[in-house]
């Protein structure tokens, strides 16, 4: 099921939390909403989950809309809220049965779905415990289990790994990757590594707007992205090499990293490698290393979110 969002706007007390957002999430793809706190990720996910009504714009789940098919859509989506609220006073199994029955899963399927979710989310040893006795990691797993209990076509996950230790984070990411193979997954997070490691498509948000959109590779190759090279030049004095490099018109900035290692930033497509090679040849220096530095998602994120 594809999710098509057009011109989505949400205003809280004269403040635009989400501003004319448009995107499409496709089946078999994980779309990551990346942004700092207050970027509008959770508000967007809440609107997608039908918890908030947009002031403007439309959300289509294939041909279904909330205005006409609210119950139908809610049966097709699974949602993990940001703070993962759960009922502490009941057991893991009772909670999952409760959620399954709310989705009106046929009675003969309920038990098998609950057992499947317990197995998928690794809750076998915790299933008889009260929810208040679970660790943060298991609570998060239970949150994901309730979101998947009815085998939804669209999964909305809001900050699924916040507050987890590295092992727990790895476990949750593996579950999300498995889901992404056959469902439409929309994942909101402020953790760059999470988005980088799990998502096929990334949407960087700031102040309710999309600042950049595409696959991680596409974002790295964005036309306004800098091209960086790490070079190690030997056979000369460092100040002389530094001065000579600075005089090359293609180089926008230069940083001395370590001993004779430099990182140069330049505009892409200017054949900087050739210019550096000519410079070394003229001065009788030699290059021991020249590596293109791939722009990290973190750099792109910082760049686009600091624009505003």
């Amino acid at each position: 099921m594809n999710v098509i969002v057009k011109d989505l706007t949400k205003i809280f007390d004269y403040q635009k939390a989400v501003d004319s957002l448009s995107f499409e999430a496709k089946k078999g793809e994980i779309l990551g909403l990346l942004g700092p706190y207050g970027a509008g990720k959770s508000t967007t996910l809440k609107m997608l989950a039908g918890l908030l009504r947009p002031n403007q714009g439309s959300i289509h789940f294939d041909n279904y809309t909330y205005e006409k098919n609210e119950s139908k859509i809610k049966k097709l989506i699974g949602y993990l809220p940001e703070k993962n609220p759960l009922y502490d006073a009941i057991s893991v199994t009772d909670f999952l049965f409760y959620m399954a029955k709310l989705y009106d899963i046929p009675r003969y399927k309920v038990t098998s779905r609950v057992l499947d979710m317990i197995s998928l989310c690794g809750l076998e040893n915790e299933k008889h415990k009260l929810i208040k006795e679970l660790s943060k990691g298991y609570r998060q797993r239970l949150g994901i289990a309730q979101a998947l209990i009815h085998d939804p076509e669209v999964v909305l996950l809001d900050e699924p790994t916040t507050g987890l230790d590295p092992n727990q984070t790895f476990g949750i990411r593996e579950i999300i990757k498995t889901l992404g193979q056959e469902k439409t997954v929309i994942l909101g997070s402020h953790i760059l590594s999470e988005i980088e490691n799990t998502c096929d498509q990334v949407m960087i948000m700031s102040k309710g707007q999309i600042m950049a959109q595409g696959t991680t590779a596409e974002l790295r190759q964005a036309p306004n992205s800098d091209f960086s090279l790490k070079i190690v030049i030997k056979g000369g004095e460092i100040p002389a090499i530094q001065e000579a490099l600075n005089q090359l018109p293609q180089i926008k900035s230069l940083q001395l990293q370590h001993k004779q290692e430099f990182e140069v930033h330049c505009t892409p497509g200017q054949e900087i490698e050739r210019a550096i090679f000519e410079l070394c040849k003229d001065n009788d220096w030699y290059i021991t290393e020249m590596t293109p530095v791939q722009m990290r998602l973190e750099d792109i994120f910082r760049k686009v979110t600091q624009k505003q």
Partner: protein
Amino acid sequence: MNPVKVIINKELKVIFNSLLFYIAFTVFFCTTGFIYWLSQGNIFYTGQASLGYLFTVFNGVLFFLIPALTMKSISTEKRDGTFQLLFSKPIKTWQLLAGKFFAILIQVLLCLALTLPYYITIACLGHVDHAVGFCGYLGLIFTTGCYISIGIFVSSLTSNPLIAFFSTFAITIWFQFLFEMLSSWLGNTFIASVFMYLSVNDHFDTISRGIIDSKDIVYFISIISLFLALARYVICKSRI
């Protein structure tokens, strides 16, 4: 399964796992028993197998018990954020409210079932009009329904159960005592008759005497519907 039934089952499961519920039951049973059998105005003192007094005692104790049962109904869902969880499922606000309402009503019915031994004892001690007994319990169920709907409405306004408890108490005290008192102070005026109509006690007294009047039934159903509709409005408004 119907979402209302699912919510009722879950609510009852939570409440039966809670020690507080058993304490509340014991307190209700002991308090009603003490007032009816042992206090100064007990039935042995009056020398009458009176059902009217029995139902007045039950009504008074339930008046204190119901705010305690309703205070958490919506407020904790708001406080813990489980509203987000529930409303991302295919359920409607009225189904949630109906589930909560009937779950609390069932708890009160269980409380009232505990009092059946009292009723049977009185029936053994003297002549009892069973039709009046039936009407007394019916009146208690209607009165309880009113207070539960008020409690659910107040609980929907706040995320603090303690505030919900005292606010419910503050509103129900008007329906239990103050409207009736104001009415008697104002004498024979139109406003006095309006206040008298608003008093739950007036309608409860009529039913518990064995008179089932459509005026009283309409009153109870109106109050229940009004406060549940207000609760629905508050919840829907918070989701916009």
